[in-house]
């Protein structure tokens, strides 16, 4: 029987082991994380700082020094007055074009992929896996390779250059990864639920709409984040499959950045870059937590 009395109080272990806030473990742990965080934050910092400087200051100082005199002019210019050729309305026009492209493309591509994933996971019919395999291999094909065939297909369908065409293109190229995500997710849902619904007499679409869909919010969030960022950031399809009056923001960004007038206006470029990245960035900052949860909720399970 231990005799707790004789021991000096304080020497006798009791309760939780005391931990110093600056233990070696914590120093290594948080130290590494902080260093990593610096590496990841540095470019953002540089972008923001630069976008707030005037050109003279940029030429003189180094990129890491904070702005001496904060100016929002680069932002204004990037948004409203930067020129490409004859059009001097900056990114503003592209913004709405991007919205018009991103919203339907995201919705439709997710809808199609989720139905595919559902059909693959729950209604396995003969041959489905073969098509799916082709699809997955398709994820590895560089987009550039596929431009030509797609131009031909869209031309034959008579929808080249229309928003519909672009939406279809985004749907096609979003399909492999999204279908994989949805298929894995639906496969991780209990199969008995699906069986119960069938016995209740629900058909393909009813089960999808009434049972599966409401249960799939996490994966829909993941898919949405992936598609919004992917489509918003897309340059290649945006430029090939649209016309100038519907160019998305990235094309405008490319134009601004590449239309060098004398010296590169780094501050305007950075402001334009930040403006273009703002939407996906906001989506991430707002829903990053859901993203991780969604990935954990089945996207990852092979």
């Amino acid at each position, binding site marked *: 029987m231990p005799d707790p009395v004789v021991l000096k109080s304080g020497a006798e272990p009791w309760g939780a082991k005391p931990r110093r806030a600056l233990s070696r473990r914590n120093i290594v742990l948080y130290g590494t994380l902080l260093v990593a965080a610096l590496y990841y934050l540095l470019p953002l910092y540089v972008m923001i700082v630069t976008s707030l400087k005037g050109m003279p200051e940029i030429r003189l100082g180094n990129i890491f020094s904070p702005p001496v005199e904060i100016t929002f002019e680069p932002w204004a210019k990037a948004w409203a007055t930067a020129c490409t050729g004859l059009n001097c309305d900056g990114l503003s026009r592209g913004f709405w074009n991007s919205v018009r492209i991103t919203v339907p493309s995201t919705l439709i591509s997710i809808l199609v992929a989720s139905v595919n994933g559902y059909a693959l996971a729950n209604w396995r019919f003969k041959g489905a896996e073969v098509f799916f395999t082709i699809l997955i291999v398709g994820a590895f094909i560089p987009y550039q390779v596929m431009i030509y065939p797609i131009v031909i297909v869209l031309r034959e369908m008579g929808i080249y250059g229309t928003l519909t065409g672009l939406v279809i293109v985004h749907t096609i190229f979003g399909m492999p990864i999204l279908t994989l995500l949805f298929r894995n997710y639906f496969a991780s849902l*209990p199969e*008995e639920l699906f*069986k119960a619904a*069938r016995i209740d007499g629900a058909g393909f679409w009813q089960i999808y709409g009434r*049972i599966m869909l409401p249960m799939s919010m996490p994966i829909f969030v993941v898919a949405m984040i992936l598609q919004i960022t992917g489509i918003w950031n897309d340059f290649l399809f945006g430029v090939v499959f649209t016309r100038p009056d519907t160019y998305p923001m990235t094309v405008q960004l490319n134009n601004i950045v590449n239309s060098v007038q004398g010296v590169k206006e780094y501050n305007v470029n950075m402001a334009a870059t930040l403006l273009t990245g703002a939407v996906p960035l906001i989506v991430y900052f707002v829903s990053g937590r859901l993203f991780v949860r969604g990935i954990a909720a089945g996207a990852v399970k092979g």
Partner: protein
Amino acid sequence: MQHSVSIRDLSLSFGSVSVLKDLNLDIGEGEFLVLLGSSGCGKSTLLNCIAGLLEPTGGQIFIRDRNVTWEEPKDRGIGMVFQSYALYPQMTVEKNLSFGLKVAGMAKAEIDKRVARAAEILQIGPLLKRKPSALSGGQRQRVAIGRALVRDVDVFLFDEPLSNLDAKLRSELRVEIKRLHQSLKNTMIYVTHDQIEALTLADRIAIMKSGVIQQLADPNTIYNMPRNMFVAGFIGSPSMNFLHGEIVERGGRPAFATNGVDFSLDGYAAGEALQPGRKVVLGVRPEHVKVDEDGAEEAHRATVDIEEPMGADNLLWLKHAGHSMSVRVGGARRFAPGTAVRLSFDMGLASLFDAGTEERI
């Protein structure tokens, strides 16, 4: 008796793995049939075939004399209850119950009536507005049963409905299911691998092994007259004790001899088949082994190896003539390990199996 469900030559394979093999089974109107078997023997597969959730590779299924082999699950007049409850998580209990009816386009008033009736029968009235996540396991399973109930079907299919519940709830719900059957008088097909459930609930039990029905009989017959060693060993906990030996003649009457010890077979009803010399296995259930503390001749003496008090009963593991043997005695009778006891069997309730075919003699 009219057959509620008939299965003819049903077979099913997944790829090259044959799970069900030419299975035949007739289930009477209002019967409570339990499918019992160890994991992976094909119970769920059979149930899914009946429900129409799996396509058989061959054979036919009749429900109320109608060939439903190719029909959709919803048209078969069946309701099904799953181990994992399979409640629609985003719907309230009420919605869960009414979903199938709504899908079928039933009138609102009729739906409400049926839901109310099911809720009353299952005593889940106060839960109707909750979501499944706010229910306990037992309540969830009740709702799942309710979902089958509202569909007003002829045949209820249960796939291990109680496996996810703890022991206490399990025995409670068992009683409720039994009561439900007594009042509804539907046909029920119930899959389990828990023999207590099987014994307590079933009108008849079908014991399966690797997709083949081994014995189909009422619980009493299954327990006391198992057709073969598999059934005998499968039913009963702890398992029946098996002693390998042969028939010998002692005083003109057949006896069972093992490791040089004889046990009289008086009381065992078998007659002709007990020719001396036949290699047999004697099966005795733990509660049919009698132990006495008063001394015995060497041959029938056993020593207590382990004692497992279980409250109401006391389980002894004996060592006897090289065998290990389990014995069930009353909870009040205690034996310290090492105690020597006298062993005898209640031959009227024992079983003899052929050592080769493992069939009952």
